[in-house]
């Protein structure tokens, strides 16, 4: 098995980075270019950058900014946010992004996903689903940065994406977003047991031990984290960090 990837997730709101709590209350984190530069110098495995208002505000991906950011990455970069058509993907890849993350559009237009996989290769296309429990505890997929409840069951959807040849799946727990109290291991387990593609856990990471848990018990192929790598302490103050190579090796091997 490939070395388990530990991936920082950065959220873009217009031209600045923010961090949310349960997908709400965005707190300003700073300049994306410098944050990416720092993560690059920390030699992180991979980076995911998501534009969280592009789809809801009907805006196009910010190609100029993406180009500058990609120029600072000597590791793979995944971008998601506001992608509606398969054609747009070409331009994004051209500026130096390795992988594309589809979210709202994947739910609305499965055919677009199929086309994109065929055109760009499955390893280039990943799909992320944002999941929230309803009043009765049932998990449901939400799109448009958590604003629209599609009522779709995540497992059913994941199986569908698997069949379309999507390269990897990101499962993001809205309930646990920013809370730093651990991943939704149960949800991960349910999905990883059913699909063939690699699944990345996201939402809730607070400690390296929690990462180990979702890998070993949840079957995650990789773990993603936002707040954990961007905040420190009770005041939730901005401090970019990443586990050292030694820390990661000791936990994952």
């Amino acid at each position: 098995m490939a070395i388990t990837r530990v991936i920082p997730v950065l959220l873009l709101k217009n031209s600045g980075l923010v961090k949310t709590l349960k997908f709400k209350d965005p707190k300003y984190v700073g300049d994306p270019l410098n944050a990416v530069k720092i993560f690059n110098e920390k030699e992180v495995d991979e980076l995911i950058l998501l534009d969280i208002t592009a789809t809801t505000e009907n805006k196009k991906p910010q190609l100029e900014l993406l180009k500058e950011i990609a120029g600072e990455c000597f590791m793979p970069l995944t971008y998601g946010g506001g992608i509606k058509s398969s054609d747009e993907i070409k331009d994004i890849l051209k500026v130096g992004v390795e992988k594309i993350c589809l979210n709202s559009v994947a739910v609305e237009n499965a055919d677009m996903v199929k086309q994109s996989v065929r055109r760009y290769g499955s390893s280039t296309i990943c799909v992320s689903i944002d999941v929230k429990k309803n009043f009765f505890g049932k998990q449901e997929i939400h799109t448009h940065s958590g604003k629209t409840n599609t009522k779709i069951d995540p497992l059913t959807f994941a199986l569908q994406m698997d069949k379309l040849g999507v390269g990897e799946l990101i499962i993001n727990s809205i309930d646990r977003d920013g809370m730093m109290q651990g991943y939704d291991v149960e949800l991960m387990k349910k999905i990883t047991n059913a699909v063939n593609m690699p699944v990345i856990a996201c939402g809730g990471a607070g400690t390296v031990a929690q990462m180990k848990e979702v890998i070993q018990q949840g079957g995650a192929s990789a773990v993603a984290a936002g707040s954990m790598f961007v905040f420190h302490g009770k005041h939730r103050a901005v401090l970019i960090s990443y586990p050292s190579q030694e820390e990661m090796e000791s936990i994952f091997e």
Partner: protein
Amino acid sequence: MMTDLRPYQICTRCIMDTTDTEISFDENGQCNHCASYFKLAPLYVYQGESSDKALQELVAKMKEAGKNSEYDCMVGVSGGVDSSYVAYITKKLGLRALTLHFDNGWNSQLAVKNIENIVKKSGFDYQTWVVDWEEFRDLQVSFFKASVANLEIPTDQAFLAAIYNLCNKYNIKYILSGSNFATEGILPKSWGYNAKDTKHIKAIHDQFGKVPFKTYPLLGFNREFYYTYVKGIKMVRLLNYVPYVKSDAMKVIQDELGWVYYGGKHYESVFTRFFQAYILPVKFGIDKRKAHLSTLICSGQITREEALEEMQKDPYPEELLTQDKDYVIKKLGLTPEEFETIMKAPVKSYKDYPNDEKRLKFIYSVYNKLRGR
């Protein structure tokens, strides 16, 4: 270039020279800077027992004032030597501190790592003030276009505003700063106007800026007066109360806090290191190392020969310079051509722009008298 018509002359005691256009020399060729240093040192540099006593009294005062707050003091941390050493001393003194990092978007990875180590090892609570990058960049570019020598005003001013603001919020009465006389005592006025002139900042912003101020913190004298006089928040240069030898301090923080050296003073900020090692020398003919090394000569930390040797070295490894230059230009949103145009534009003085120098000089002299300075 900011050169004088007078012939080049360098001090025979320290290494300050005529790139400070206002420098003066006595009959022995010794300059006003080191003379001034020796005159003021007894007031500001560690003097042994009297300093120890003063420190004890200060700590008692801080603990007393801290009774009404979660914290006894606030410590600004940048990842650099001075502030890291302050954090170390503060911990040893048993004070409850809130560490504050002012984030202007230019942190180097090593600086961030150092801050992380300090905060984790000391166990102090931690806060940041993150300046809105769009507003800040616009202000930095404005100052750059204004061709004035002190490009750090946007940072320095905002940092002060932020730290006072937060002290007020957390009801903290003492700010422990890393500024110190032993390594920074010498700094010519002609090399940079002081940061606290909001009229000057607004004027330059009005002339060259495009992004309106929405969240960028402005201090201004009235507000500063409120914080310091009305709210009683005091700025303390803690390192003036302890023996401060840079190389020793570095070793201590390396051993105790896992601090890592990044090369060069203030090199924890990508902008500052590029500014000091490239923009200042190339556009303004100013090499700040002279001031810093001259201070070290006066405080007995290095010899004049060692200082001259140090000056022979490149302030910047060539490779890093190219990378930093590309990065700074990109990050400031300029094209390489625009950058070169500004670099070649004639040097201006702060006096060429609206400023409150006279009024502030007067106000501060009265204010300082009131406070017994």
